[in-house]
Structures are given as C-alpha cells and as structure tokens.
C-alpha cells in the first residue's frame, strides 16, 4: 500500500474556498428558516399563544378561515381567500362545495385572541353543518 508522507519541503495550505462554501450554506439555511416562518394570513389578527401546539401538516386540503369580531355591532365576519362572509350560511355552502369528495379536508381557524367564544362556536357550527369535522386552531409558539 502506498502511503503519502509529509516531506519537509511540502507546503500545507489552509483551504479557504471550502470554508467559504460551508459558511454560505449555513447562511442560506438560517435565512431560509427565518423567512419561512413569516406569518401568513390576515395581519390584523393577533393570534393566541399555545406553547404545546404542534407543527402544521401541509399535506391536507384545507380552507383557512380568518375570524373577525366587530365589538360595536357585537357581530363577526369571516374572510377566506380574501373573500368576506358576513353570513355563516354562505360560508357553510362554500365549505360544503370545497369539501365535497375530499376525505381529508380540514378547516384551519385563525381567530384573534380577544374574540368571544360564541363566534368561534358559530363558525364551528357552520363547519359541522357543511360536513367538515376536522378542524384545527392556529396559535403562536410564543408572544
């Protein structure tokens, strides 16, 4: 077997190029994980905090509902794909049409932390009427 020997005359150089490559890869990695977690959806909604919530599954077909509450009128409305639904009957019909034939269809609820529970219950009622039983609630990992 041939063994390389370090001769006194051989010059051992520090290779800077691979180090720069690795540093750039690490940099790109951190940029990606920082920008991937930019909050999506309605920026007006201040989500509640739940430290034990799980990471979202992205494989399923879903509808994201943004729940808004008007304190003055004591009424709420829902936005889905930038379409506003003031009446929950119309939302229920839309959800029924979207979920038709899809077994794993789910509804993602994004609601403000100050929202009264009654409006969430009404929206859940609309989901149940539309035949959607798989619902998930969105929350932040920390404040």
């Amino acid at each position, binding site marked *: 077997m041939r063994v390389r020997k370090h001769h006194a005359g051989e010059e051992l150089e520090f290779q*800077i190029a691979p*180090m*720069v490559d690795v*540093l*750039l890869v*690490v*940099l790109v990695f*951190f*940029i990606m*994980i*920082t920008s991937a*977690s930019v*909050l*999506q*959806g309605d920026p007006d909604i201040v*989500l*509640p*905090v*739940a*430290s*034990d*919530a*799980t*990471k*979202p*599954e992205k494989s399923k077909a879903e509808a994201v509902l943004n729940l808004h509450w008007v304190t003055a009128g004591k009424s709420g409305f829902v936005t889905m794909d930038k379409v506003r639904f003031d009446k929950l009957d119309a939302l229920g019909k839309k959800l029924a049409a979207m979920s038709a034939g899809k077994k794993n269809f789910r509804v*993602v609820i*994004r*609601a*403000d*932390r*100050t*929202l*009264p*529970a*009654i409006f*969430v*219950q*009404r929206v*859940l*009622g609309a*989901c*149940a009427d539309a*035949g*959607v*039983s*798989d*619902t*998930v*609630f*969105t*929350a*932040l*990992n*920390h404040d």
Partner: protein
Amino acid sequence: MRVRNIHEENLQFQIAPMIDVIFILILFFMCSAGAVKTENHLVSSLPGTAESDSPVEIPDEQVIAITNAGKVLLNDREFDSSSAHRMPELRATLGRFLESSKANKTEAMVTIAPEAYANYQRVIDVMNACAAARIKNVSFRMEAEE
C-alpha cells in the same frame, strides 16, 4: 497633490473581510431564528354523523366549562387562576384522566363548553393543556340556538 495610481497597486480580492461579513450575517440570522414566531396548530374534531356497522365504543368524556370571567371548571371545580395561561393544575388532572381511561381501556375525550363571551385565548389555553396532556379527542359544545 499626490494622486494614487491604481496600476501601481496590487489589486487583490480580500477574503478576510468577506468571511467577517458572512460570520456577522450568520450570527444575526442565528439569533433572530430563536425569536421567530411560528404558527402552530391545535387539533380538534367536531361531532358529526358517521355510518358504522360495528358497535360504537362510548368514550370516557369530561366536559370543561369556561366562564365569561375566564374561570375554568371541571366537575364544578375551578382549576388555575384566570391569569395562568399554562394551567399546570388542569394539565396534571387531564394527565391522570388519560391514564385512568387507558387503564379502563376507553378513549379519553374532552369537550370544551365555553360561555358566550369567554375569551378565545382562554379556550386556546384549555386546548393547549389538553395537547400537553396528550389528549387527542378534543371537541366543542355548540351553543344553543337563541
């Protein structure tokens, strides 16, 4: 006035400052990655209709009530103060409930019954306690029609 002649200078690509800048950028993104807010999910299932030929097992159900003032009640007993978001007492109780359900070979199920103007954050606190206690079957009680 003395004018510098660029032809005389030895123009070289300086690698050391570039590495310095990359290190600073990495440090910045590493620090900001820890403080980033992410949207996570709490799963629940609504009561629905299901066709089944096999006999249905009745789950072991507990109903957690949430008052408008933020009090959390399980079997008429109040758990944790209204300001405690992590709800350690409720977590421990739900953990014991899950263990007893497993011992009885039944499915543990929690139904959340909030009052009309209970705060949504409080509902999420209870769901978070259920998730921490590893209770997967969480449902909601629907409001009665007015």
